[in-house]
């Protein structure tokens, strides 16, 4: 049984990505009790799946490490992984949250030694690498997973493989009898930080993401650079493993398009500028990058980064939204369109095409609870929301990491104000 001690002075944080972790830590470091609920087996979220951040080009693992240190040092945060919020009922300062916890089949005894992983041979598609490779069905989600504990995939339960994993464990950490649990507890305020998901690229029919293996999304491109990624850090294209030296980026793939996402996803311009440095990092002067854009939205101080990339002779900017993609016999994607600077028609061949894919909220805010309102894109509309449910990070808008953290801190502060009102009323 999972015991969660919570009162109506507790803050519930939904989502354990960069925003949720930040909101939970800020609130806890202000002396509030926090329950942090994460759907996946580990905290970290999408930021952890990035190779580098813009504009400083440092690695997200560093930020993750700092946050995990703060988390371990704080007794006020209770982390629930593999957990999802089913309902929230009540009123500000007095909510009841219902959470379902899926079985991990691995208990606290786990030392992450990896013996169970060696014992099983069944493989599942690896969600951490966006399904581009496979992982064993007894797995640690990624090297820096928190809690650092293995997971047995539910597909293994009831098979001899599960018994093999159990037999291999020296610490009696595998409990194949675990069941899904549903728990209820009181909270005073909620920080909703469920983040974003990449728009379904297959819906952009003319780009052929579902037909051409060498058309990938920006989030998949990030995984190619990771030494623990599907290619072991090699920048090669999926169809034939050829080195991807001539890479095209298509901006506004799904965003700013009334047939897809109405909003500007804000991060994609900077993400492609950043990813152009990846190609340069791997192939130096053999690299050729083409960025097809409507207009580059490098806001505020990011302009400097944009200027730096613009000065790179190996990065070409083509002012045009690509009309459609075809492939030649070698599997090279060919981009067709007309550029706006002179109206020249082009049919450009590249090794690999990266769609700077738009972001949409993971959870449609209008489905959280009746008093929580969504804007036209499904992000939480803070002005129309009447509940003490505060959006943080990409649940509230399309934001980069920096602005997500600011938004999470703001969300934590709003939640703290509600809790303080409750405390005063009860004192």
């Amino acid at each position: 049984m999972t015991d969660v001690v919570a009162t109506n002075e507790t803050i519930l944080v939904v989502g354990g990505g960069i925003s949720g972790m930040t909101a939970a830590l800020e609130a806890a470091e202000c002396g509030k009790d926090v329950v942090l609920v994460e759907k996946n087996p580990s905290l970290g979220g999408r930021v952890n799946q990035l190779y580098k951040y813009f504009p400083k080009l440092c690695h997200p693992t560093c930020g993750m490490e700092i946050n995990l240190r703060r988390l371990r040092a704080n007794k006020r945060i209770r982390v629930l992984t593999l957990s999802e919020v089913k309902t929230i009922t009540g009123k500000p300062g007095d909510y009841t949250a219902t959470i379902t916890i899926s079985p991990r089949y691995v208990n606290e005894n786990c030392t992450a030694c990896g013996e169970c992983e060696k014992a099983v041979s069944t493989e599942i598609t690896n969600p951490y690498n966006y399904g581009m490779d496979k992982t064993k069905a007894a797995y640690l989600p990624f090297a820096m997973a928190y809690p650092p504990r293995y997971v047995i995939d539910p597909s293994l339960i009831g098979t001899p493989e599960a018994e093999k994993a159990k037999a291999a464990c020296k610490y009696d950490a595998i409990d194949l009898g675990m069941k899904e649990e549903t728990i209820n507890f009181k909270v005073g305020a909620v920080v909703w930080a469920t983040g974003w998901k990449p728009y379904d690229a297959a819906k952009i029919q003319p780009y052929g993401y579902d037909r051409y293996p060498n058309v990938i999304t920006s989030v998949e491109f990030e995984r190619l650079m990771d030494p623990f990624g599907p290619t072991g850090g090699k920048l090669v294209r999926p169809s034939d493993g050829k080195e991807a030296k001539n890479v095209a980026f298509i901006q506004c793939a799904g965003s700013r398009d009334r047939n897809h996402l109405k909003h500007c996803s804000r991060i994609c311009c900077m993400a492609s500028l950043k990813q152009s440095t990846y190609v340069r990092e791997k192939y130096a002067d053999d690299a050729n990058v083409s960025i097809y854009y409507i207009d580059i939205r490098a806001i505020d101080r990011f302009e400097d980064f944009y200027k730096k990339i613009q000065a790179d002779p190996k990065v070409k900017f083509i002012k045009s939204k690509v009309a459609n993609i075809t492939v030649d016999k070698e599997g090279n994607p060919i981009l067709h369109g007309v550029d706006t600077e002179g109206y020249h028609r082009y049919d450009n061949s590249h090794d690999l095409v990266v769609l700077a894919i738009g972001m949409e909220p993971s959870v449609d805010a209008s489905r959280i609870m009746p008093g929580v309102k969504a804007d036209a894109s499904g992000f939480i509309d803070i002005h129309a929301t009447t509940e003490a449910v505060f959006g943080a990070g990409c649940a509230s808008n399309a934001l980069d990491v920096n602005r997500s953290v600011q938004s999470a801190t703001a969300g934590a502060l709003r939640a703290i104000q509600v809790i303080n009102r409750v405390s005063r009323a009860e004192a």
Partner: protein
Amino acid sequence: MTDLNKAMVETYRNDFLKEVEANVEEGNWVKMCMQCGVCSGSCPFGPDWEHPPQEIFAMIRAGKRDEVLKSESMWMCTSCYNCIVRCPRELPITHIMHGLANYAHRLGIAPKMNPTRRFAKIFWDNIAKSGRVNELELSIRLYFMNGFMKGIKTGLEMLPVGLGMLKTKRLNPFGLFAHGGIKRKGELHKMLKKAYEIEDKRKGFAK
């Protein structure tokens, strides 16, 4: 320059976008174009256009009145609707192209020999006369559009098709003279006259 054209130049001096918004079908959408280029890239006839739609929208905003209205470009549109389907801002591009062509024609400054314009005119005169297309007359007029000799030549080329249609009762040779059309044609002509009046008044074509 026709009188109507002169009057329009006078009314909208230096603001061609406003003129398009007021007088061209769906013209109020032009300002929504963000110059992404998807329409031009998606057009199956794109390579044959002197100015693709995206460029036409930019030219309208730049006030290039003569270059746009005297252009052959928008007459190239075949109404495949690829641009409308793909436009990120849902501009009714096909309709705007037809609107521009129609407006240029109304002003009397559309390219005189443009085959699409000439065909459209033949078609319109044909259908407006009796309320129903006289297909035989339409084809013959079309054959002879480019001169007598060319008409004879095309007619002879099409002879086997015509005979085939005759055999399968898809063609009535007497239809050329005894085309019935609709009942009460006069009423149709009155309606069309009234529609012209209303449109001219609304768009300021008539004083």
